[in-house]
């Protein structure tokens, strides 16, 4: 009983975002997440529903459309799942008043943490007033929606706030992770890592080596940005990553998406840095926001996210006859397996790769893994 898109109020905003995503006009996972959250807020504020299941269906339909528009941009789906999870929680706390989600979530974490204060109680405490919600009221079909909407808007605002403060929260403890006179290696241009390094640069004097990350050459921008912030920076080609690794104290990487097994999709070149670090027993730190947690596995191939970029950055048409005789492979992302990563620094604290499954259980609902 999935509703048609044009029947959903607010669908115009959804269609605009779908078009933008398909054309890859939204650049960056955080931007995509922010836009998704805003569109969902519009949809929820305009939605008409008499019971919670209708609202959930509407949100799922919208989410499915958005995720299909750009399947490689996982943060879109993650935001939808996050919103759904928050909506269900608000509903549960409003109707039943219980602190934890009373749906049948059977997880080890629930058994282990039973009785301990959970972070979700914070949102439940907000809704002090116990509203009597009447579902499917024939006399006043809008009463249910009217009563619940303020709580839902709060829930979505939570998601938006979290997205806005990602960089600040990730960089909160940067100065504890980086010491003076350390040499840090980083790859590509991740805004989260940039904020992390710049924040540590206020307190510590250290050196950063940035790998160029061919063929996107994002490393050049990163090096320029870091050096203009006063951090002494070295720009090296990717070929010298193993050569300099013996002097590097830490490798800090950004992630495009964090997978359910604790692995991650990072820009191509991240796997080289992580493997070389493992060969030298150098710690690998990944800085990412929690909106990048994805309930997804990379089982069937080594390619990261199956996203390929323009081959002319590798072998351009100026090479003439070569172009028709030679195959060119230019994957945009790398898959880094969980045994290569030591810690994920997220806006919600530091986690080892082995506990990512628990984070996913806590952040999303099981039903939403497939939108």
């Amino acid at each position, binding site marked *: 009983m999935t509703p048609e898109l044009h029947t959903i109020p607010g669908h115009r905003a959804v269609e605009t975002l779908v078009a933008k995503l398909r054309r890859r006009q939204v650049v960056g996972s955080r931007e995509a997440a922010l836009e998704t959250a805003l569109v969902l807020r519009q949809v929820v504020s305009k939605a008409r529903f008499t019971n919670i299941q209708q609202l959930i269906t509407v949100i799922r339909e919208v989410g499915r459309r958005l995720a299909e528009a750009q399947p490689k941009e996982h943060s879109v789906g993650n935001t939808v799942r996050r919103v759904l999870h928050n909506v269900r929680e608000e509903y549960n706390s409003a109707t039943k008043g219980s602190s934890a989600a009373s749906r049948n979530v059977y997880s080890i974490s629930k058994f282990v943490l039973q009785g301990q204060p959970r972070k979700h109680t914070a949102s439940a405490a907000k809704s002090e007033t116990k509203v009597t919600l009447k579902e499917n009221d024939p006399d006043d079909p809008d009463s249910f929606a009217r009563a619940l909407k303020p709580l839902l808007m709060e829930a979505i605002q939570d998601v938006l706030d979290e997205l806005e403060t990602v960089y600040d929260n990730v960089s909160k403890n940067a100065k504890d992770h980086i010491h003076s006179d350390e040499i840090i290696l980083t790859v590509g241009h991740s805004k989260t890592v940039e904020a992390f390094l710049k924040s540590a640069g206020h307190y510590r004097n250290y050196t950063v080596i940035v790998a160029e990350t061919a063929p996107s050459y994002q490393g050049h921008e990163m090096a*320029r940005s870091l050096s203009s912030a006063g951090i002494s920076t070295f720009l090296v080609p*990717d070929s*010298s990553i193993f050569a300099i690794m013996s002097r590097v104290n830490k490798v800090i990487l950004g992630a495009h998406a964090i997978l359910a097994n604790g692995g991650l999709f990072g820009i191509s070149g991240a*796997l080289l840095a992580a493997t070389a670090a493992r*060969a030298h027993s150098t710690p690998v730190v990944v800085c990412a926001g929690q909106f990048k947690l994805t309930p997804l596995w990379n089982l069937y191939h080594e390619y990261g996210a199956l996203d390929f970029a323009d081959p*002319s950055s590798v072998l351009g048409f100026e090479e003439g006859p070569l172009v028709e*005789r*030679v195959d060119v*492979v*230019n994957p945009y992302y790398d898959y880094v397996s969980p045994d290569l990563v030591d810690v994920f620094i997220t806006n919600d604290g530091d986690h080892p790769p082995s506990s990512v499954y628990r984070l996913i259980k806590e952040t999303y609902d099981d039903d939403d893994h497939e939108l």
Partner: protein
Amino acid sequence: MVPGPILEVHPPNGPPSGEPSTGQQKSQKAMTKAERRELQERQRAAKAAKSAASGVNGKPAGKSKDQAASAGGTPKQKPSRAAEPQAKSVAPAGARAAEKAKAGQASVATDSMAKNQARGLLIFSHFGLPKPVSAAKGDIHPAIARLALQFSAFKITGANARCIATLTAFKTVIQDYVTPPNHTLSRHLMTYLSPQISHLVAARPMSVTMGNAIRQLKLDISGTDFDLPEQDAKDALCRKIDTYIRERIIIADQVIQETAGNKIKDGDVILTYARSSVVEKVLLEAHASGRNFSVIVVDSRPMLEGKRLVAVLSEAGIQCTYLLLPALGSVMSEVSTVLVGAHSIHTNGAVYSRAGTALVAMMAKRHSVPVVVCCETYKFSETIQLDSFTKNELAPVGDLFSSFPNNKPRESLTLENKPNLEILNPLYDLTPPTCITAVVTEVGVIPPNSISSIPVALGRLL
């Protein structure tokens, strides 16, 4: 025979001229020798007096140190440094003092600047920075001068190519050489060749292959018979050089072609990195003998040599795939063998090769793909290197090899050093022996741990 024409190269910067920091300046040339000596004596006496004074009262020394330690603004340093030599010499300071002041303030300015970058630069100071080909001391044969220019412009690259080019140039030099009277060829030729060799080293640090070849040449020169007439001795030397090239490079390569070619089977996917002349020959030979395989060429900045290899291989009809180094993880699971060349190989089995080879070998090991290194025995080095910093070479900063793609706007790239930003392009790296499965040489296929015993087993020095 007429000696070869002399090439004199002047350094780009002219004779040093002192900045008018103290105001009074007399060009050093204007002063006569006696005047200069007098000035020097005065300054020396003043300095001795000053050091005696500072022992009693450390204030002036401390004061200047303070000013040096404070934020390194050059104008601030100037008056303090300029004041010192004025205090030193009673007479008006001449060019010598101005020079000293300039050197003083330059060193102080670089001190404070160096403090900012000291941390970063120190750890990489082992790298050899590229030096401009400039002051040539002594007479340099034009063949050597041309070769040096080709080296510094990276027109001739690759261990084998450089060695063969060097030896060929030396043949010309030897033929043009004339023993001066009262000297023997066997003793004097080497001293004649030394400045030529230094000139080549100034252009680009010497490769291990060049070093081994020159060592063999020195041995041959010192072993020439005294009684031979000069032309015969020179011809004998040239013949020995030819034999060296033929036996240890050309024929060695042919043996390696066959041996490594036997490792390639139908349906194999061979991965190679950058451009090794030996690997190129192996692949062409294997294809010519009818085997059906495909090649993946992995390439990387700064030199992007793999493109030429892809051109050669695809011309010959071999199915090629081309990718850049970061994409390596995606294809490694399909590879059957990794075939790489080497610049040199050390006695512990570590391979010194183009930067990036270590990454390829490491990824192959992770995926349990055998790594085969093709290396002639004349590339063996008797030293042991522990990491890639001990001996390495930096490519000049900038887009010397035109290795950036055309569809990338140049403004988004950083092509030169900026404040707080330095660009390093190391050209070589060291692959640890644990990542290597086998080394194919002209004397057989040997595991990397046994490299040290090969010269002994063959009964020769190296």
